[in-house]
């Protein structure tokens, strides 16, 4: 996984709450067996609507999504994270994320930055007033920044320490865990033998 320290890119205001993973990518797009190509399904139901924000040229090349509360609730499909990444998003800002979505983001290298609802409102207003304005998500200092002068927005965001550290270092989770192989093996010797198994000696 690539390291993530700070990213500045065009902010895209998604003025909706409760954007579940079925909205981010509908089930019919989940049949691929690769990790790429999911951008075609991103927000599929809304993409045909000319007034949908991603169809506004001003936000073309957007890479920081700014969404309402409860973004990414619902299904566990990591395809939702891949679709956002395949489209070009590096970070999502929201006041509250679905748990599994946030976990998936951390694993796949998409920064899910949780901020106060008021901050989202201010960034939305800024992006509406100045379409194409950039937003910075700085993982090192844990801050989001947007705008300049007296209207500049700067606020801290929440992300758990462990995920932040892994993203900053670009570390593969599985590699870290395999480093604890001895602990896992030791634990396995203590498991009760009556616990079920799926394979039986014949």
């Amino acid at each position: 996984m690539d390291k993530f320290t700070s990213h500045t890119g065009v902010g895209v205001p998604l003025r909706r709450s409760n954007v579940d993973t079925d909205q981010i990518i509908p089930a019919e797009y989940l049949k691929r067996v690769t990790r790429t190509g999911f951008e075609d399904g991103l927000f599929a139901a809304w993409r045909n609507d000319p007034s949908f924000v991603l169809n506004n040229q001003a936000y073309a090349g957007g890479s920081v999504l700014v969404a309402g509360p409860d973004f990414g609730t619902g299904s566990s499909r990591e395809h939702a994270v891949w679709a956002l990444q395949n489209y070009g998003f590096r970070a999502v800002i929201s006041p509250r994320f679905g748990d599994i979505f946030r976990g998936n983001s951390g694993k796949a290298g998409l920064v899910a930055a949780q901020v106060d609802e008021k901050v989202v409102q201010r960034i939305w207003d800024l992006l509406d007033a100045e379409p194409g304005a950039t937003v910075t998500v700085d993982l090192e200092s844990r801050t989001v920044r947007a705008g300049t002068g007296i209207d500049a927005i700067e606020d801290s965001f929440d992300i758990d320490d462990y995920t932040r550290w892994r993203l900053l270092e670009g570390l593969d989770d599985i590699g870290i865990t395999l480093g604890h192989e001895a602990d896992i093996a030791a634990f396995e010797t203590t498991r009760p033998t009556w616990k079920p198994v799926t394979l039986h000696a014949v």
Partner: protein
Amino acid sequence: MGKTLAEKVWDEHVVRSVDGEPDLLYVDLHLIHEVTSPQAFDGLRLAGRRVRRPDLTLATEDHNVPTIDWDKPIADPVSRTQVDTLRRNAEEFGVRLHPLGDIEQGIVHVVGPQLGLTQPGMTIVCGDSHTSTHGAFGAIAFGIGTSEVEHVLATQTLPQAKPKTMSVTIDGSLPEGVTGKDMVLALIAHAGTGGGQGYIVEYRGQAIEELSMEGRMTVCNMSIEWGAKAGMIAPDQTTFDYIEGRPEAPKGADWDVAVAHWQTLRTDDDAVFDREIVMDATTMTPFVTWGTNPGQGVPLGANVPGPEDFDDVQDRIAAENALRYMGLEAGTPMREVKVDTVFVGSCTNGRIEDLRLAASIIEGHHVAADTRMLVVPGSARVRLQAEGEGLDVIFKQAGAEWRGAGCSMCLGMNPDTIAPGERSASTSNRNFEGRQGKGGRTHLVSVPVAAATAIRGTLSSPADLTPATVGSN
């Protein structure tokens, strides 16, 4: 201080715990299906890794499979590739698979309990958010993403921050005709779709203890719909009776040792939950959704709410959007909402008890003229069991379609979808925009409401039916 049920099960599975890092949790059972696993197996191959414990892993085909002509090759080539990929991966990595056509094939959350693999005190994960279903047995069970599937395949563990705990106590007994589904829909409407976020929830109280295992699974299934990490119910005699004698249940002396341990899996009297919710079962009624998230629900006897009924700005906007999408007028009695399609099935309500209940209501009636009804068993075994009991005949005589096992119209990934603008009453768990087909409108309902709605063509409960003349139609 004592421990909660969740804390007891959690602590029994901690492989490694270090300050400032998530706990490394051991996984007792890893369930796999075709949609969220291909990229995980690819990752293993790329890194030259193996599946650490194939003997704690089980795969089945459910999300993408057809419910008609399941004995023929899958027509859609992309779906076929995905299913074939699972078969190849299972073979290559030595994972037990129940493919389409196998008697144990079915929705992964129906298959685990039915085999007796789901047992109290376990940790169970699956690349599917409704893994919370298995919590009904007193297990910690939760959904994971594909990167985590790969992690569990490679290490049989997951790094997890310990969630907070919450109790939801449902006092009193449910009135006749009111089910676990109504209970959990009422709870979600009360707590909000984000209300459970960050918590493992323990459901307790008289109404929970009185539920069958199927009813408990329905309640735990929907934990994720209000954002909870997992939902659990302490195991008791109902749990033990359900498990005993199933193919993978402990046998002989092992059974006694297991039960003795399971009996310790109760929240201690002096344990403290981080949050508590108390509700009264005695005043609960059939509950249905009107909107596009599972929290947007009302009693069946109520009217469609309007945006002005909500104090919070976001809720008001969400209500406006939902009413527009659902094509509903505020103030319309829910009972007058006309339904095109009724779906009975899914990991929420696709078990044998659900089908028996639906059949008992539909028997001697006929599905309304402009309404279609789809009955999809949760597993091949449920299908055979239902057919053995003649339930399929009852459904077919009433004009319903009887199908093969799978997720089907719960998520519309296979050909079972509703058309744009079509309205469904569904026993599944998600009423998101487009969930059952692009532009489709979903009302979440209980099994009795689904059956009565099929007969009347508008949202109804069995109390609205005139008695059937059994045997005629």
